[in-house]
């Protein structure tokens, strides 16, 4: 499920008895207990897609998609930040990691926290944003066993790529359409974050439709996912917009999404860096390629959304809708429900008997073929450009 929701945190989750109201309960906590809270809480609430949720072939293909997206992002980030990429993206990843642990109390006993995809996209741009969130996911998977290793591609695609790219596209679009100004950026950030969360849910639903391991009406999945995630998205949007607003108030030059809004004093770009805001972030050449990229992104998003809705209408039955709505209505705060809705469908056959043969063969062949193809592609790409290869591909080629 949860996938998107996995991280999704933002909202309601009942904090079980041991967790008190949001941040610091009434008594002054000691340093260690604070640290404890900071460190521990989030992890229990962040659930990424586990192994076995999406079947092997789909996971493999999604892994390749994630790898491709990472390759593109690596190149894009390098183009924007040149040799500052590693330290800056690393620090921003550490920031995302930390800020996901910041609790935003909602009301008695519940609190939410950021997913961070949209925030990353707005603050540091889509390329660096994808890298940062992906690295956070990768490390969570390896260090905390958060999210299945075979589902890493799914997690990265949905949480890092879709969220970030959608947020960026929405932000860009709105900033262009609306009157220029810092308020606009804040408002656009709200919308971008709001849209990005359900978009991730839709992406997950599509993946589930293709490669989910249990058969459930895709309509139900879609409704449930989108419904819950719109709620989650509202929280995410509020926090994101407030945070972006706070940064803009102090260092507007650091906000990628606000670039070009202010007329910087004439910048003499003199070779050496330093004074990062000025020297390093002039609206760079990649404008052209970015718009190209944007076209591509827009196409992707449109098709994702279309596919989501089409399948939704195609298969949703009134009962299904009602039932899910009912489920949700009861207590969306409860964890179980998040799970309940998200997961579900699978049109991938699995009819026991022939599943063995057809599914099995398909699985083995699919995994083999994608891994082989992936390795091949990466081999070629890597020869040409060491910097641009992607995650996943290497490990998988080694593994098999």
């Amino acid at each position, binding site marked *: 499920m949860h996938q998107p929701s996995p991280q999704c945190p933002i909202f309601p989750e009942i904090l079980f008895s041991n967790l008190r109201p949001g941040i610091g309960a009434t008594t002054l906590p000691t340093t260690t207990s604070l640290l404890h809270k900071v460190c521990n809480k989030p992890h229990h609430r962040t659930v990424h897609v586990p192994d076995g949720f999406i079947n092997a072939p789909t996971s493999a293909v999604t892994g390749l998609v994630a790898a491709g997206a990472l390759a593109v992002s690596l190149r894009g980030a390098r183009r924007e930040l040149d040799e500052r990429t590693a*330290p800056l993206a690393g620090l921003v990843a550490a920031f995302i990691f930390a800020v996901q642990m910041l609790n935003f109390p909602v009301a008695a006993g519940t609190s939410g926290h950021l997913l961070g995809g949209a925030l990353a996209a707005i603050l540091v741009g889509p390329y660096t944003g994808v890298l940062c969130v992906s690295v956070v996911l990768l490390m969570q998977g390896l260090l905390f066993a958060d999210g299945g290793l075979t589902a890493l591609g799914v997690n990265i695609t949905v949480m890092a790529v879709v969220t970030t790219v959608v947020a960026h596209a929405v932000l860009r679009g709105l900033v262009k359409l609306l009157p220029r100004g810092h308020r606009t950026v804040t408002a656009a950030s709200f919308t971008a974050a709001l849209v990005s969360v359900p978009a991730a849910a839709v992406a997950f639903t599509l993946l589930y439709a293709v490669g989910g391991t249990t058969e459930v009406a895709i309509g139900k999945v879609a409704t449930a996912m989108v419904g819950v995630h719109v709620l989650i998205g509202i929280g995410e949007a509020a926090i994101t917009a407030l945070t972006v607003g706070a940064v803009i108030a102090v260092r507007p030059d650091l906000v990628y999404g606000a670039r070009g809004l202010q007329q910087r*004093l*004439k*910048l003499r*770009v*003199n070779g*050496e860096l*330093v*004074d990062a805001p*000025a020297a390093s972030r002039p609206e760079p050449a990649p404008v052209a390629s970015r718009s190209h990229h944007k076209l591509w992104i827009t196409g992707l998003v449109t098709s994702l959304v279309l596919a989501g809705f089409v399948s939704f209408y195609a298969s949703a039955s009134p009962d299904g809708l009602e039932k899910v709505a009912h489920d949700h209505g009861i207590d969306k705060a409860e964890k179980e429900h998040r799970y309940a809705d998200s997961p579900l469908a699978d049109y991938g056959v699995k009819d026991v008997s022939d599943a063995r043969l057809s599914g099995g063969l398909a699985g083995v062949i699919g995994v083999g073929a994608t891994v082989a193809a992936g390795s091949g592609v990466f081999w070629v790409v890597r020869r040409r450009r060491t910097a641009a290869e992607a995650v996943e591909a290497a490990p998988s080629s080694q593994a098999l």
Partner: protein
Amino acid sequence: MTASPASPASPASPASLEVSGLAFAYPDGHQALFGVDFGIGRGERVALLGPNGAGKTTLVLHLNGILGGGTGTVRVAGLPVGKKHLAEIRQKVGIVFQDPDDQLFMPTVREDVAFGPAAAGLKGPELEARVVAALERVGMREFADRPPHHLSFGQRRRVAVATVLVMEPEILVLDEPSSNLDPASRRELADILRSLDVTVLMVTHDLPYALELCPRSLILSDGVIAADGPTGELLADDALMRAHRLELPFGFDPRSVTMGA
């Protein structure tokens, strides 16, 4: 480290650092340096004093070519700082930044110390030997495999010094070396600095520390060198000190301090 291709300049070893006519404005138009001139001979220990905003950091960033593009020249051991010799210059000028957390960016102490020489192409046992030697000079050898985050502040600062010493620099530039150190760490660092056989330029607000370690001081004020002389004399000149917003700690009288070894 890497043999310098050509040591131009005079056969007699040139001064470690020569700065002449250095002026610089940031891209936003703010001018920080207005013609700075000074030289530091090989093996000297010099303090650079000055109020906040005097341009000290800007000056330091010119010494290894991170900032540039203004007028004037900086020469390190006779070599002009500029694009052409950047790698060599950065090996010769070792800057220890104020926050050791910024300086120690690798996962372990050993790797951090190895970073500079490794970037210059050193590897294998030679690299290892250099790292060990540098850590020994700051008394941190047994901490080699620790992550920097697990060290105390004073230890981190010492490791930061090692990361620069390992490059065998011509000149060691320290930005506020005594800040945030407890008295014991402060003294330990002083002992280490005194034991080193390199040219030192120390940017500091800690006047007693400057007096203790540096026979000579420069006062940078409003982007120019306002005074240059023996540390004791400068600190004892009340009018000069007041003019440049420099204040001695309460009860500290530079005249009463006898400079030992």
